[in-house]
């Protein structure tokens, strides 16, 4: 059984049919890349999987349990962690605090993601009391997590470690994206959702990020990835799902998808459009071949 399945998902925004019955699977330890032109519905799909929004029809199943329609904070507690397209770090918190927040759902016995309303009051009171008293075992838990944060940050070499106590708003754009990824890793996600992890990065930074992704892959991290840089997709993805206008047009191994004419059509238009398609195809070809 696959780890994450998306089955026949539909989403409407007013008159726009943004997703028209999208289905795909993600297996344990697998990296799947979602590609497609702008407006294909990739980020909408991400928002549905991370429960930021709910589908109008269809189901999303994680580990055999339906998660669609859950509040987003409960989806996080089930082991879904995401990064955002435009890098949403907590600006006034330090790098350390940002990444520690990623581990929020793992503060066992301390916080409570969402029990039934009656229980919620009791656990909230308990959480207030613990956070004021701060018993030793919680201080130890916090210290252990801080160590773990250092480990995670060492993934990025010395990009973030020296800036541990700097507020996130003072970081460069690429470092904010790295902080975001580190925060997502601190959740120890079952499925890691990466929304354009290299958007706005230069080639060196992109290479570094792709190395980080490969490293995560080797550790068995299951990942779903939205990416426009096909070079990166070819390098890291086990399988590729191509979306266009809210539908899956092709899916399969990177090699088969790359050479599929329907993909080229989706990016540059139909063949009979003669010269335009030919010249556009010429532009696209190198990046697809890379």
């Amino acid at each position: 059984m696959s780890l994450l399945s998306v089955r026949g998902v539909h989403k409407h925004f007013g008159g726009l049919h943004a997703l028209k019955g999208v289905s795909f699977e993600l297996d344990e330890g697998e990296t799947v890349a979602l590609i497609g032109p702008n407006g294909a519905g990739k980020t909408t799909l991400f928002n549905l999987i991370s429960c930021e929004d709910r589908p109008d029809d269809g189901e999303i199943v994680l580990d055999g349990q339906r998660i669609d329609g859950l509040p987003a904070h409960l989806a996080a507690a089930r082991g879904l962690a995401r990064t955002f397209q435009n890098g949403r770090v907590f600006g006034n918190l330090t790098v350390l605090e940002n990444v520690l927040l990623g581990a929020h759902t793992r503060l066992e016995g301390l916080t409570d993601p969402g029990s039934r309303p009656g229980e919620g009051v009791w656990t909230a009171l308990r959480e207030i009391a613990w956070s004021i008293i701060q018993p030793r075992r919680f201080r130890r838990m916090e210290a252990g997590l801080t160590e773990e944060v250092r480990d995670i940050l060492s993934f990025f070499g010395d990009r973030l470690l020296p800036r541990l106590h700097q507020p996130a708003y003072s970081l460069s754009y690429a470092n904010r994206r790295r902080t975001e990824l580190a925060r997502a890793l601190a959740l120890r996600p079952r499925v890691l959702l990466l929304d354009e992890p290299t958007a706005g990065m230069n080639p060196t930074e992109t290479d570094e990020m792709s190395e980080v992704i490969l490293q995560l892959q080797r550790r068995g991290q299951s990942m779903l990835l939205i990416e426009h840089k096909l070079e990166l997709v070819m390098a890291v993805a086990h399988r590729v799902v191509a979306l266009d206008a809210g539908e899956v047009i092709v899916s399969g191994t990177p090699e088969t998808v790359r050479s599929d004419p329907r993909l080229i059509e989706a990016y540059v238009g139909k063949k009979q459009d003669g010269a335009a398609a030919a010249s556009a195809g010429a532009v696209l070809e190198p990046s697809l071949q890379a």
Partner: protein
Amino acid sequence: MFDQLINGLVIGNLYMLTAIGITQIYGVAGVVNFAHGSVYMIGAYIGWMAITWLHWPLVPVILLVLAGSALLGLALERLAVRPFARAGSTILLLTTIAAGLIIDNAAQVIWGPQTQALPNPLPQWHIRLGAGTVSLLDLFILACGVGTALLLHLFLYRSRAGWAVRATAQDRDAALQMGIDVNRVSRYSFALSGAFAGLSGLLVGLYFSNIYPTMGATATLKGTTAALLGGLGNVPGAILGAYVLGIAETFSVEWLGSSYRNLVAVLLLIAVLLFRPNGLLSGRRALNPEPTAGTFIPHGRPLRFPRWLIPASAVLAAALPLFVANPYALQVLAIGWVFALMAVSLNLISGTTGQISLGHAGFVMLGAYATAILTSRLGLPFAVSLLVSPAVAAVIGVLLCYPALRLRGQYLAIATLGLGEAISLTALNWDSVTQGPLGISGIQPAAFFGYEIWSAAGVYWLDLAALLAGVWAVYRLSRSHLGRALRAVREDEVAARAFGIGLARHKSIAFGVSAFFAAAAGVLLAHSYSYIAPDTFTFALSIQVLTMIILGGRDNVFGAVVGAVVLIVLPETIRFLGEYRYILYGLLLIGMLRFRPYGLLNSNT
């Protein structure tokens, strides 16, 4: 019935003149202008001076009122709005509140706090219409209302300047790029809405035959309610909202009694915020997301002090009564400690969690009433009530605020303001429990195990101990994982939720803990005043406490204490400041936001 309907329409007309001003300014400047009622009050006073001192006839009086209040509107725009145009809408809300505070209290200094009679210069004609009568003044008010609405409509939809105003309301930046002078548009709008507000103040004064310096507060509340009913920024909506409000009020007065007039208005305000935040005319869709991250008060980090400084100051404060024999000085400082407790608690909501609350006085009041009732009626000892009353208040406070917690920015601020008012109006109307406007007197002084605390030093130590307990708890909490989660909610709600932080749960925690300590402050005050009434803890108190945390520094527990002590001790030590206390608060609020927005005990790096 018919009389009531006419009455409702006339009142609705009066509200309309304020509501269209508020809604128009919201459209252009993106802020609910809380100084609007103050312009309205000044308009009434200008008219009063012209009628009773100069004996002018009505038409020149109206022209003078229009000109005077338009000028005040211009001054407001220049001093309290334009310098903050880029600072975000919640900052603007605070600066307009501060401006209103200054104008209201200046009026009190100039004309005295008493009510002045405003004679109606119109002939006392009455027209019989079916079962009811209509006076010339009613007709005049109707004419003014319809006339200004028509004029505004022509201006907005038939003139070039109005076109620019509408464009700016839609998209300020795009309008700027198209060559529209948005500052001029903003000036026009404030002048125009100021003129309407002043006229409305004069007409209300004539209708009720009297005026007083604090008459603007109700006008702002009613105008905002009407504007929200119609959807903020929507001029025809505001007109509809004003009539709905006017008619709802007159009928509730008819059926429930005149003391319910304001309660009904406040409940309407809260209901529309909860169920139709975009107004009656819009579909039931989600609220426009307002950016909250970092818009409350710009960033700052606590200044670092030597480790020993804070315990040393606590010890020094505790030892003070041993050296200072003057009971007055100790009383002032004791009050300072209680206010510091309120500031520390509000800081958890507004500083740490970034939710602006204008109803903090409501929590204080809940605590004060709870202890007054529990100790006087049920004979609970003070020591027990000191813990039980805040707990009761926290439960009630969270239950009341819970539905409003999904609102953001200005909408939440207005909702908390409404809740604070609702608490005080409930105390006013629920005679059997609260003794209504009489208040509760004869509250016992604080006592432990039968020993009553009478001496100034005793009260001082009690209040200081409560403050230290509050500071300890809030400081520990804010340094824990929970404080971190609350800050995450402040910085980015979407990202916080994506990492397992339930928004309603964490905001409730912040409001609950905050309400507990605010109510504890209320308990201490109730037992040291020995008398409380619905007007003991007002909106002015909420603003005072908010000023304290802005003075001390956002999200800085010790800053809140310093801010409170400065704002309480300063007006007492410098004698002549006493009368100008609230003017000082207003000036400090605007001045801090302008020149040191991160507060005294935060640095900007």
